[in-house]
């Protein structure tokens, strides 16, 4: 028993606070400050090898690691849920390496790392939202040359971005892009909001929380400071529309939160539930109070 507790202490001792060494964190913080000063601009940083594969949120983890302080309360979500593999493993990672408090409640958290969603509960000032970003370059599939896309950003040559939306309407009759919907940050840089559903795009606009984006494999960091104008691109005659499945959550009955479609039986019966598990729990609680 005595030996075990010794080992546990050892575990914490082995790692520097929040895993990364202080110099690396300093480098990332510099990149973060620059990113906050130039909203939407992709700042290169020397991304480190993390003890997990690319695509598991190495960018987000590095940003979180650079931002964490011992009194932080951390929440980690994956597709809105607190209990999926990615969320659980990242939460455990920081519990082990930083020994910070964790929570599932959005309103209690001071730092939220997310993959592919923005929480339904409105974010507040002094909260930080860290996004895991697979592809930071919104023009990637339109213009493969990175030297050229950087020039296009620098000169605000965004005609090509609209060509993508044009193609959507020409092909489908409406803008089909449903996630990673490009936005213009602070009227200047076109930014990839990471693959959040376009339902979440309006939440980015004028948000009181700090929004930080980390792309580990691509070695880029960008940010949206609090209360920044974030506009989803669109055409005059085809305005932007935040979309979700037109159903109610089968657990909490909410009709205004983003829903996941799940197949519940072999003959293809479907059910819709909130993708934000914390929001769903709270709505259920509220409902049961009302019934009482």
């Amino acid at each position, binding site marked *: 028993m005595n030996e075990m507790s010794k080992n546990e202490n050892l575990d914490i001792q082995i790692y520097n606070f929040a895993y990364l060494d202080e110099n690396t964190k300093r480098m990332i913080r510099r990149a973060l400050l620059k990113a906050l000063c130039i909203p939407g601009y992709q700042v290169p940083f020397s991304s480190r090898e993390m003890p997990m594969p690319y695509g598991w949120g190495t960018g987000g983890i590095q940003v979180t690691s650079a931002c964490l302080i011992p009194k932080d309360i951390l929440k980690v979500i994956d597709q809105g849920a607190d209990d999926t593999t990615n969320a659980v493993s990242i939460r455990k990672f920081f519990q082990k390496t930083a020994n910070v408090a964790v929570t599932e409640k959005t309103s209690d958290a001071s730092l939220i790392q997310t993959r592919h969603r923005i929480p339904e509960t409105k974010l507040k000032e002094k909260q930080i939202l860290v996004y895991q970003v697979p592809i930071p370059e919104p023009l990637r599939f339109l213009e493969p040359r990175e030297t050229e896309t950087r020039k296009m950003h620098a*000169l605000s040559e965004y*005609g090509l971005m609209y060509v993508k939306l*044009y193609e959507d309407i*020409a*092909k489908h009759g409406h803008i089909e892009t449903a996630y990673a919907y490009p936005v213009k940050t602070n009227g200047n840089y076109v930014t990839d909001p990471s693959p959040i559903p376009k339902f979440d795009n309006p939440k980015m606009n004028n948000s009181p929380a700090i929004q930080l984006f980390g792309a580990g494999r691509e070695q880029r960091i960008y940010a949206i400071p609090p209360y920044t104008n974030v506009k989803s691109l669109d055409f005059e005659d085809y305005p932007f529309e935040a979309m979700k499945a037109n159903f109610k959550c089968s657990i909490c009955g909410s009709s205004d939160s983003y829903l996941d479609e799940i197949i519940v039986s072999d003959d293809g019966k479907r059910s819709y539930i909130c993708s934000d598990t914390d929001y769903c729990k709270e709505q259920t609680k509220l409902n049961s109070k009302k019934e009482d």
Partner: protein
Amino acid sequence: MFRHRLLQRTNQIKFKKRRLIMKQNFLFQASNISKYYGQNIGCKNVSLDINPGEVLGIVGESGSGKSTLLNCIYGNLEVDEGDIFLNDKSKTILNFTKISEPKLRLIQRSDLAFVHQNPRDGLRMNISAGGNIGERLMAIGHRNYGEIRQIAANWLEKVEIDVSRIDDKPSTFSGGMQQRLQIARNLVTRPRLIFMDEPTGGLDVSVQAKILDLLRNLVRELGIAAVIVTHDLAVVRLLADRIIVMQNGNVIEAGLCDQVLDDPQHKYSQLLVSSVLQV
């Protein structure tokens, strides 16, 4: 006498600053431009000027520096010596070798256009014909889908492509259609000067004739000035008002198209004209 004077004007190699002030109605002027590739000469001491609505042909054999010259005056290649002036829409004279890159790119998108020999270089092959035409519009700030689509449809009609193909990708088009689409894509923003690098190269003769016919009509109808690089004398005979003949990076003869082709003075021009096959 008139012909003689013109010859003198176009042959003028030394560019004088005084002329710039005196002659305000020119559209484009290149003076003494040189481009070297290490020891090799791309083009040397070339001067030319283009008036609004005029078509200039640049002819010469392969490797004579035609394409280098074209890329230099379009601003794609940095010149080693010389100046390039454009009289822009607001009548300000801009020097390409001095202005900033953003400004140059803006001018390349609005005042100028470039038609590549191979349509695959000038088109986005994985984007529909309508999107290809619309790109330049969206780049200069058009944000109304209906309008963009209407303009694209009009231009397809102008270049004789069936409007029902508006949502098809250029990869499903024939070579001639791709070239016509590239022309439409470039002309949609009404540039004042269009650069063409062998626009009919690699096409069969009947398709070539169709494209030349189309180009001639469009250039005349819209009053667009053009610079056409080609090794095909028939093309310049049909389209150009004036031509310059190049060899080894130098301009060896310049003048009115018919004059140079009917009565070539330089021995290389004579060789070039005499080597055209007669059917």
